[in-house]
């Protein structure tokens, strides 16, 4: 391959993990405000979805950068995929469990006992919940798992006590709906219970890193700077506008809330003035813990030494 040349990869395809929404606020901000252009890059941002897999597309050469969850990365690495993590978008996993305090009281993990807990079998919420239960020595026969789909009716109807939800995205929408009906909500957060399961990260291939280090660097810088700007409270108005443009189904009032929570999950290093610059930090310990959880649950069959695949920028 060519050693040099940001121009050799043109245009760059960037595959997101999910549909355009608040979780890609910085990516969208970069697109709208020309962060990539300023680095001399042309980038196509493409929405993802459950049937999409950015890592596969990286390997097939259809995408050059992508967003993947940590469990995807670890699985891919365990199967020999030459993937590298560039930026860890979330410091706190946004996956939490919503519940209605009028119906159940969850003050500590022990309160999960004998509850109906919604999990997506095969999804990373299953891994998180199992890790949590095992950490607090709650037998899996002491809780009732309920297989979750995209339809919230069982939760609305009270058949399920806790429902897995992305804290910064649907949670705001669903929460608002419930609150409008005078049904208060609360969240059970595994992170605060000591489970550190890494969420979304920006990835690329080792080949890309080797053949086009400049491009990778420029891309990463553009992206991180865009994310920092997007999380900056002073830009709130414009960020909302940008996100709403790509995600017209979510009203600006909701996006405000979502943005606030997203900021807390991506930059939990004190207030923005102090912590903003640490956006994207790769939390090595959390990655190792994630790998361990997966190993314990036999989702991978051998240690992968995930730290070797984390491209820690200094």
């Amino acid at each position: 391959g060519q050693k040099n040349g940001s121009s050799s990869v043109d245009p760059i395809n960037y595959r997101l993990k999910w549909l355009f929404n608040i979780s890609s606020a910085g990516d969208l901000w970069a697109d709208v405000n020309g962060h990539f252009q300023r680095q001399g890059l042309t980038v196509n941002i493409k929405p993802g979805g459950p049937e999409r897999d950015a890592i596969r597309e990286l390997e097939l050469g259809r995408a050059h950068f992508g967003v993947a969850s940590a469990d995807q990365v670890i699985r891919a690495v365990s199967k020999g995929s030459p993937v590298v993590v560039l930026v860890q978008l979330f410091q706190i996993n946004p996956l939490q469990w919503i519940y209605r305090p009028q119906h159940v009281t969850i003050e500590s993990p022990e309160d999960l006992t004998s509850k109906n807990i919604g999990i997506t079998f095969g999804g990373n919420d299953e891994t998180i919940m199992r890790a949590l239960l095992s950490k607090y020595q709650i037998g899996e026969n002491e809780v009732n798992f309920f297989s979750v789909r995209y339809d919230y009716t069982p939760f609305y109807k009270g058949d399920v006590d806790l429902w897995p939800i992305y804290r910064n995205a649907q949670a705001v929408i669903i929460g608002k709906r419930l609150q409008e009906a005078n049904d208060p909500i609360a969240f059970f957060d595994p992170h605060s219970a000591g489970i550190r399961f890494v969420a979304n990260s920006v990835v690329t291939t080792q080949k890309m890193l080797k053949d086009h280090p400049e491009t990778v660097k420029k891309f990463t810088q553009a992206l991180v700077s865009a994310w920092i700007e997007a999380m900056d409270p002073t830009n709130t108005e414009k960020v909302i506008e940008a996100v709403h443009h790509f995600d017209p189904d979510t009203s600006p009032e909701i996006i405000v809330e979502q943005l606030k929570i997203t900021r807390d999950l991506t930059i939990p290093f004190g207030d923005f003035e102090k912590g903003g610059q640490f956006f994207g930090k790769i939390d090595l310990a959390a990655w190792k813990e994630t790998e361990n959880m997966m190993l314990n649950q036999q989702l991978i069959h051998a240690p992968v030494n995930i730290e070797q695949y984390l491209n820690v920028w200094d």
Partner: protein
Amino acid sequence: MLHRRLYQFFIVYGIGICSLFSIKYILNLSDYVIPSPIEVWLTAVDVFMRYSVNVLDTLSVAIIGHVLSIFMAIVVGIIARLTTGIGTLIKIAAFNIQAYPIVAVAPIIFILLGDGLASRLLIASMICYFPLLLSILGILTQPVSDIEHFFQMTGRMTWQLEVKIRIFENISKLIMVITGSATLAMVGTIVAEFIAANAGIGYTIRIALYQSDLAKILVALFIIGISTSIYLVCLEWMGHMLQKKWEG
């Protein structure tokens, strides 16, 4: 005809939505399980234009997919008539591939074709071509001996002619099947958008699902229903014209 179809659609849709609201009030379900009529109305006012544009986008892909799948079904139907190994193989392949749910095959399709229009069209036509294929196979394998006899006797029979005769003799059935499968083309496209996610009403529905917003889904279903009706009427009209022209 259009007028009648739309009118019928309104009745069906009306019945559907009224029973939904009845359930809501009988079971005393809250607005987050089934939205209130007012909420549905407000949502409609809010998203109608935008959703209509999305539906038009979807409809145009659906039409292409439909044409493609008619083409695919006819080609497979013709090839499957052959008694040679390759004919049987293609027929069996067509049946076997259909035996898989698209959601299971989607990852493989994306691996093979990427996420351009190609995948979307393939998924859309895979969903709608099968009923067409079934009917076309049925029609193409059933001899019309009182017409075919002459051509067979005089050695003039070609597969093209055989296909033409059998299609002609079953043209009204075929038009019905093609018209009917148009709704499946629409479904196929929506599902493809649902999976391949970048535009169209399928994408919108998915977001609404993700936001657990039944009101939006009801509005989307309404617009989909109307535009599918219009498409069906166009097809029926075209079929009618074609038949009139062909049958004299």
